């Protein structure tokens, strides 16, 4: 296996102009010079991507992953450094880029295919496959402007995958179309993998990377943080995202491999055992079975709860002293107890991690390893069941007492009537 893409010391500087002077008058007034702040979208990125490998690039928005992809594709010119690509390359940065709405689907297949690097004869050969893949047999001679957005994207994808390059660059476009079409796309990606083609996927979705990639790179602020197998890379990425330590350029080396491992994580609610779901305000215990090769002092445990829309419902304070634990050699069970979980209906997933308190090293991080379900027997809706008291009193005619204050304890306030029972 050779190297398919060799990225050597790539840096890319963007110029951020406080005011953009694109007119001649402004250029003349400013003497041809425009004030700008240099912004390094990429800084000394070096990585080799092997032939036949599916390689993921992870990072939050603005970390430079798309810029890197554009440099590899040849759309942007790197400021310094060099990229060598072995074999033919096609980039899917946007589906249906260059579609002419006024032309028919047929014409657009030829146009888009040519832009992606196919010769006219090649496209003719693949034309039927493309149409069949896009499931547009009945509409291929209609103007593309009358297509639904789903049809548009399907056509774009169908052309792109039928280019069959040695190296395929994909920028978060896999999530298109309905479920059936998505499966078809993934099948196609799998086929590409079997055929030994190199695929580079850019995403900020950990799942895409985990399911499809053999190696992944995490980027932040235009720099490479780590290149590793997907599980490790995703952990670094999520840790970075969730603020467990500062990983960007961290000198302690980031992950402390294999000293401590989380084996399994279980969620158990305090309600009567038979129910699979819990009611709001019941207690919840998360237990994590941890193996440890050495005694770890001052470890910080952390727990994050996501809702089914993948939004963080709760993330524990990474520096909370209450989360500090000592783990002896051999490991044990870490318990996270919530005496009361005021969440309403939904399925919640739990992520658990352990890092060192003093350094920035992460021992282990299990992303969304277990879940628990809350079913609310009452009729309150929303995400959280807030503790609520409602009371009533008459207007204070004749009342001469002090103005009631909301105090630290939530007992009945002076001057208020207890609600009639």
């Amino acid at each position, binding site marked *: 296996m050779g190297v398919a893409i060799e990225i050597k010391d790539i840096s890319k500087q*963007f110029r951020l102009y406080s005011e953009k002077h*694109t*007119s*001649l*008058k402004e*250029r003349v007034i400013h003497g041809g010079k425009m004030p700008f702040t240099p912004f390094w979208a990429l800084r000394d990125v070096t990585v080799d991507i092997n032939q036949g490998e599916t390689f993921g690039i992870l990072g939050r928005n603005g970390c430079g992953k798309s810029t890197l992809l*554009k*440099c*590899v*594709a*040849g*759309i*942007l*010119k*790197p*400021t*310094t*450094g*060099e*990229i*060598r*690509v*072995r*074999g*033919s*390359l*096609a*980039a899917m*940065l*946007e589906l249906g*880029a*260059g579609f*002419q709405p*006024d*032309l028919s689907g047929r*014409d657009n297949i*030829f*146009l888009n295919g*040519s*832009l*992606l*690097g*196919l*010769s*006219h004869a*090649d496209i003719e050969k693949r034309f039927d496959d493309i149409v069949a893949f896009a499931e547009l047999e009945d509409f291929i001679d209609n103007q593309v402007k009358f297509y639904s957005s789903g049809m548009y994207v399907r056509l774009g994808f169908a052309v792109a995958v039928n*280019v*069959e*390059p*040695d190296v395929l660059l994909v920028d978060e476009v896999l999530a298109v179309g309905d479920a059936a079409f998505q499966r078809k796309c993934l099948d196609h990606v799998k086929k590409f993998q079997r055929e030994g083609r190199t695929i580079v996927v850019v995403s900020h979705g950990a799942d895409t990377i985990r399911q499809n990639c053999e190696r992944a790179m995490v980027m932040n602020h235009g720099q490479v943080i780590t290149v590793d197998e997907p599980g490790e890379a995703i952990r670094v990425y999520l840790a970075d995202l969730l603020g467990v330590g500062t990983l960007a350029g961290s000198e302690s080396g980031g992950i402390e491999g294999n000293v401590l491992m989380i084996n399994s994580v279980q969620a158990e609610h305090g309600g009567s055992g038979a129910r699979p779901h819990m009611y709001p305000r019941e207690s919840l215990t998360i237990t994590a079975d941890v193996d440890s090769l050495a005694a770890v002092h001052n470890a910080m445990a952390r727990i994050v709860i996501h809702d089914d829309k993948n939004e963080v419902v709760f993330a524990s304070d990474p520096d909370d002293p209450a989360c500090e634990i000592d783990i002896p050699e051999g490991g044990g069970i870490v318990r996270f107890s919530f005496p009361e979980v005021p969440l309403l209906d939904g399925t919640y997933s739990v992520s658990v991690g352990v890092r060192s308190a003093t350094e920035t090293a992460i021992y282990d991080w299990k992303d969304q390893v277990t879940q628990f379900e809350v079913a609310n027997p009452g009729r309150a809706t929303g995400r959280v069941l807030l503790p609520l008291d409602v009371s009533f009193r008459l207007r204070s005619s004749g009342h001469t007492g002090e103005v009631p204050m909301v105090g630290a304890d939530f007992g009945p306030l002076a001057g208020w009537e207890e609600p009639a029972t």
Partner: protein
Amino acid sequence: MSLSVERPAPGEPEQVSAIGGSTRFVPGQSHDRITVVNGKVQLGQRLKDLWINRDLLMLLIRTELKVKYKDSVLGYAWSMLNPAMVLAIYYVVFKIIARNHQPNFAVWLFAGLIAWNLFNGSAMGSTGVVVGKAGIVKKVAFPRELLALSVVGVNLVLFGIQVVVLTLALLLFGISPDFTFVAILPLALVALLVFTGALSVFLSAVNVYLRDTQHLTEVALMAWFWFTSIVYTYGQIFLSGHNKQHPALNWIQYAYLLNPMTPIVMTFQRAIYGRTQYAFLNPGATKPTVYHVLPTWGVGTYAAMMGAVLLLGIVLFLLALIVFGRLEGNFAEEL
């Protein structure tokens, strides 16, 4: 933006086909070709890429033509209406209102205008083409010069339509062109295309950074039009009686010919209009006066002029590619 292709192992059949950063997948062939992306501009590679992607150029031209007149009732007739209108206006103004006595004045006008229209349409159209196609430029890697060249291509097709109309008109009115000179028209057309292509590529890139270029081009082209002997004749300035006496005129004449569009237009006029002078009996005069419209140079001189323009065009075209290459690297962020 530079992409160079290295030869694989010596002896192995080299397969070169780079499309910007993207290369053609040719099943069953060596996949060991290496594409290099770095900050340098390599002219040879750019030219090679243009040649490799000629299919794409053809397709861009076809697409442009299709889109241009799609859904319009008159379709391609529109491509004739504009030049026809210009021709009609100049004819009315100069022949009827200004009482120009040149015979077959419409043919004279048409001969110059077809060459000018090709140049003018290309320069105007290509100036905004990269900006206008930002969607593709930002997302797909391909030699972006093709966008400018496709505009030239579209105008070449329109030129072809005009030539057909001109030919029909000549046949209809029984006007014979000078076939000795018609023989060098292909050379003149190539010279015109290369020169036009150079300017188009240059303008399309510059306009990305300096959007004034578009307006500047419009104004400059208008001045350029009147600076070129299309509506009037070359002979009116340099060959008519009283002007001929002036000693400085020789030098001005050479300077005037430095405008590459002048010799091109003159060659078209010489071939299609078919004569260099005409006689006209002025009212009140007993003897007709001879008016020169074009120099009486031989076909060799005209061919040499075209050769010189072609040479200049090639140099300019290469320079334009270098400029384009330097500017292209940041198109995606500037748009």
